[in-house]
């Protein structure tokens, strides 16, 4: 993998030189005044992207936990709401859901007598949180159910209540299985937050779009945009790997 990096860089550089009309990095050249202004404009998108992602991930964990609980029951009727929620939410593509929340939800609320205005930021947070919570709930459920039955039985015969069993025996073991996929899911949220650009939220992608409209250099600007996401995701995924190593070392 690392062997290809210099090669790819060389290819990129080669294509920048020579033939006029291919690459024009001047739009984001930090040594020129205009290029520097453009770069700052693009980088300012980080704060919205990060804020939306963190808030959505946090809300998704809370909703996911609430959805998981009935899913753990032995009674299929109690499990039903969990199944319906997960199957239904999982089936809705993110973009239509975003439109529905942003344009539709205020209308629904108004018909119920509640006057709210959903701005692009909260529209994105709500949509990402709900859309992701179905996956989060499944991650929680599979993590908890992967703890062997014998652990619950052993807890029962030493007299622990169901809540105590969850807290002291099941969850500490499930968390090792839950955290890595949960962190992966966070990467997914970061990437999907790009959709918020279509409802006008000023995050990374929206800013790139706006700059493209004024500068007419989509190739360079979108290349830089991809690089921005790459940096963000690489930081998160190295954090995930660190987490996984720590969990693994703790196991035995």
């Amino acid at each position, binding site marked *: 993998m690392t062997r290809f990096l210099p090669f790819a860089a060389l290819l990129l550089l080669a294509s920048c030189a020579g033939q006029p009309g291919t690459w024009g990095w001047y739009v984001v050249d930090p040594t020129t005044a205009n290029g520097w202004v453009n770069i700052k404009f693009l980088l300012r998108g980080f704060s919205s992207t990060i804020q939306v992602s963190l808030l959505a991930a946090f809300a998704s964990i809370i909703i996911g936990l609430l959805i998981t609980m009935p899913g753990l029951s032995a009674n299929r009727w109690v499990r039903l709401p969990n199944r319906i929620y997960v199957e239904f939410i999982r089936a809705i593509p993110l973009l239509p859901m975003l439109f529905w929340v942003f344009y539709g939800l205020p209308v629904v609320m108004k018909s119920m007598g509640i006057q709210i205005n959903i701005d692009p930021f909260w529209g994105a947070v709500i949509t990402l949180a709900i859309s992701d919570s179905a996956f989060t709930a499944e991650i929680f459920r599979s993590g908890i159910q992967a703890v*062997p039955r*014998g*652990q619950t*039985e*052993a807890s*029962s*015969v*030493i*007299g*622990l209540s169901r809540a*105590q069993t969850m807290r*002291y*025996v099941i969850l*500490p*073991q499930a968390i090792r299985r839950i955290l890595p996929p949960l962190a992966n899911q966070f990467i997914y949220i970061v990437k999907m937050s790009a959709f918020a650009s279509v409802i006008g939220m000023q995050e990374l992608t929206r800013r790139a779009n706006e700059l493209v409209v004024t500068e007419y250099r989509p190739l360079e600007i979108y290349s830089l945009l991809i690089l921005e996401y790459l940096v963000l995701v690489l930081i998160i995924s190295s954090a995930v790997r660190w987490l996984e190593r720590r969990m693994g070392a703790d*196991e*035995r």
Partner: protein
Amino acid sequence: MSAAVKMSSLSKWYGDFQVLKDIDLKVAAGEKLVICGPSGSGKSTVVRCVANLEPYQGGDLSVLDTAPDKVRRGDVGMVFQQFNLFPHLSVLDNLTLGPIRVLKQSRTEAEARARDLLDRVKIPDQADKRPGQLSGGQQQRVAIARALCMEPKVMLFDEPTSALDPEMIAEVLDVMEELARDGMTMICVTHEMGFARRVADRIAFMDAGEMVEIGTPDQVFTAPKSDRFADFLDKILSH
């Protein structure tokens, strides 16, 4: 003192399949009962019903003069074939979890008692290790100590040595024998007939969900009444 465990016509089904067929059994306080039988005979299920791990659909079961789900928490201890220790906790924390959370003992009190019990099961110096770092025999002795921490009145053993290497079986059986000498009421599902002969007051034989025969070791080893028990003994003793 009435019986520690009493069941009459105990019956249990998994769907259409009847796993327990009208089991009658009385275990007196202080008695040691060994249950044996081929796999699938329902012997584990009987013990799991007593431990309130399985529901039953017919008959009556009383444990320490009450329904299995009403027994004071910790009064019935159980040791599993697969140990079922808590892998994320140290040996000491495995032992003190119940006493601290259920019996509301202080940590110092619980730890002192836990160390005494680790002494008794002959692994005093493993308290700070994780279960995964111990041998099978050691793990099973920790499991016995964990059950004893709750000061149970009845101890149940579900094939406690079946998952162990031969050289570790003896160390677990030794601990169980000592427990028996101290007067604990014990119900053991096991195929260790040497142990049964030395320790059991009575031996029960189950097959296909029925309690086929029950008697003192002398009785059953010298003259089993049923052919099925005789066949079974013949098979496991000739190896």
